[in-house]
């Protein structure tokens, strides 16, 4: 408590601009040093992801067989790999892959999770039970196993189908097998990522559903859809933002894990995961091939994690000082 004399006329805050909950949270976030550091790294990585191709000295695909397996130097900051490709350029381009995967997968997972979770929590009953049954079922299957099974069983038939369509229509769209990769990688990752969001949102909605302002909204005759979108979801969003921030980092790790297992983004498109996978085979001789992508992946994960923790504190004013 400060001892400044209270100006009675100003207690009603007549001229002050309204301070929104979000602006309050933003100020609290800026006071948290780790969170600011995390935010800075995330912004830097996002910048690199967007403008990467214009920042790198080399193309990520150009092979220079005269300069294979070079140690880091001024010409090649992170050295070169066994095909003479510049590792720095590949890591930079891998950032784009990581962000695309993280954002697309998390977006799909959040849309599915929030929709199902919010409806399950709000309507309850049979719908709730069925959604929760699917959630539990998905969560009870080992993630990696599920993704490997989906990829292994669907990739060949899908590619064959695309080829058949191309033969039949000669539409060049069907030539691009990259769509199969995207569909399978993004689809299977989203499939295993939505249940935690659904659970989180359902729990939030269950506690918000009974609040007086929801009853008041119903007494105003508003429709369930309007109440869900305007009254319940916005009040449930705090914990979700925290979870999404951490989830983006997790999705990057997940993508790397899949690439490592050979079910992720396909070479030659650089991803941190397949770079780690390649580097691991020769790490005793050329440790930089493993260290560079691994370090960047670690940095990204830690940054998202710090940012998530910071957001958690910022959005829960009662949680901590």
């Amino acid at each position: 408590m400060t001892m400044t004399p209270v100006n009675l006329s100003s207690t009603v805050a007549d001229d002050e601009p309204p301070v929104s909950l979000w602006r309050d949270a933003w100020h609290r976030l800026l006071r948290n040093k780790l969170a600011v550091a995390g935010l800075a790294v995330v912004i830097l990585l996002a910048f690199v992801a967007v403008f990467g191709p214009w920042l790198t000295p080399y193309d990520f695909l150009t092979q220079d067989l005269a300069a294979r397996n070079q140690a880091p130097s001024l010409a090649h900051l992170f050295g070169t790999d066994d095909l003479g490709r510049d590792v720095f350029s590949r890591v930079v381009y891998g950032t784009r892959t990581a962000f695309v995967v993280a954002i697309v997968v998390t977006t799909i997972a959040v849309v599915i999770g929030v929709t199902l979770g919010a409806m399950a929590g709000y309507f309850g009953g049979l719908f709730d039970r069925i959604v929760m049954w699917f959630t539990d079922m998905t969560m009870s299957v080992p993630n990696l196993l599920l993704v490997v099974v989906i990829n292994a069983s669907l990739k060949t038939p899908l590619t064959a189908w695309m080829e058949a369509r191309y033969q039949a229509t000669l539409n060049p769209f069907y030539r691009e097998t990259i769509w199969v990769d995207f569909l399978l990688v993004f689809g299977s990752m989203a499939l295993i990522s939505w249940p935690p969001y659904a659970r989180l949102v359902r729990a939030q909605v269950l506690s918000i559903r009974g609040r007086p302002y929801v009853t008041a909204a119903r007494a105003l005759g508003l429709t369930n859809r309007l109440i869900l979108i305007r009254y319940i979801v916005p009040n449930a969003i705090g914990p979700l933002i925290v979870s999404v921030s951490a989830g983006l980092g997790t999705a990057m790790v997940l993508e790397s894990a899949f690439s490592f297992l050979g079910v992720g983004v396909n070479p030659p498109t650089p991803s941190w995961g397949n770079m780690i996978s390649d580097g691991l085979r020769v790490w005793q001789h050329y440790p930089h091939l493993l260290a560079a992508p691994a370090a960047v992946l670690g940095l990204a994960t830690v940054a998202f994690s710090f940012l998530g923790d910071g957001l958690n504190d910022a959005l829960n004013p009662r949680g901590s000082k």
Partner: protein
Amino acid sequence: MTAPADNKPLLDVRGLTIEIETRRGPAIIVDGINLTVGKGETVGVVGESGCGKSLTMLSLVRLLPNKIKVKGGTAEFAGRDLLKMSKSELRQVRGGKIGFVFQDPMTSLNPVMRIGDQLCEPLIYHRNMSKADARKRAIELLRLVGIPGPEQRITAYPHELSGGMRQRVMIAMGLACDPELLIADEPTTALDVTIQAQIVDLVKDLRKKLNMSVVWITHDLALIAGLVDRVAVLYAGTVVEDAPVGELFARPTHPYTRGLLASIPKLSDEQASRLSSIGGTPPEPGRRPKGCPFAPRCALAESVCHESVPVLESVAGTSGHRVACFVAQRQMKEAA
């Protein structure tokens, strides 16, 4: 003091019974309530906590919590039974024809929406207003409920307003679509005494201006004495006495009503006497006595009171004063 000449009441609740599911089976919380509200009439519904006041009103627009169900009775509003309406008809009544003001203004407004947007919502939904028109109307409403500087306040979030201001916003929301009936569920309980009086005066003023009926739920008889035309006294889910307000204060007939009136502290009391109170507690749902629900706490109870349940009967020589008490009814007959 009296309802307008139009004989058909705006709201006519008959035999409304509400049950709650408990682990030991269903228990009755509201037992055959009869209540009428005429057009332009203001009715106070009085009773202690847990007597079923709020549930009765929530059941009218079918907003009861999950485990609580209406088991019988009708509730006609402007000639249509609210309890049998379709969901979409009901949504038109909610907010459009019946406005609600809730007990706790601190938690009854959406914390992440500006109050202007919350006010506009029912207008856009029920009245198909454009955003700009709804905004104008929202400013008018805020002015109507006495909020200074409504043009600025419309962009405020609920946490920027005081409790009294928020309750005014709640009232503005209840009034947004010119309802025929405003149900105020203990709207002053969470407020300071001085603010309570302001809110009572505000509603008193508004109901004349807008020519609407008001049901004011409260446990504070003194607060509403100057506001309401008629009072229904509830005990354990039944109406025990129903009378014009002046009549009720002049001649309280049910022992419970007398107890309530006696427990209002008076400044005129010369010596500091102990506050009068009614001994005992109301029956729990599921453990209702066989006879009159008030009999176990009643000083005048006779054997008949423990045996059968009294019904509302007119008090001789009055208009519209009814009481459900064997003893009072017998005493009146003897006096006559």
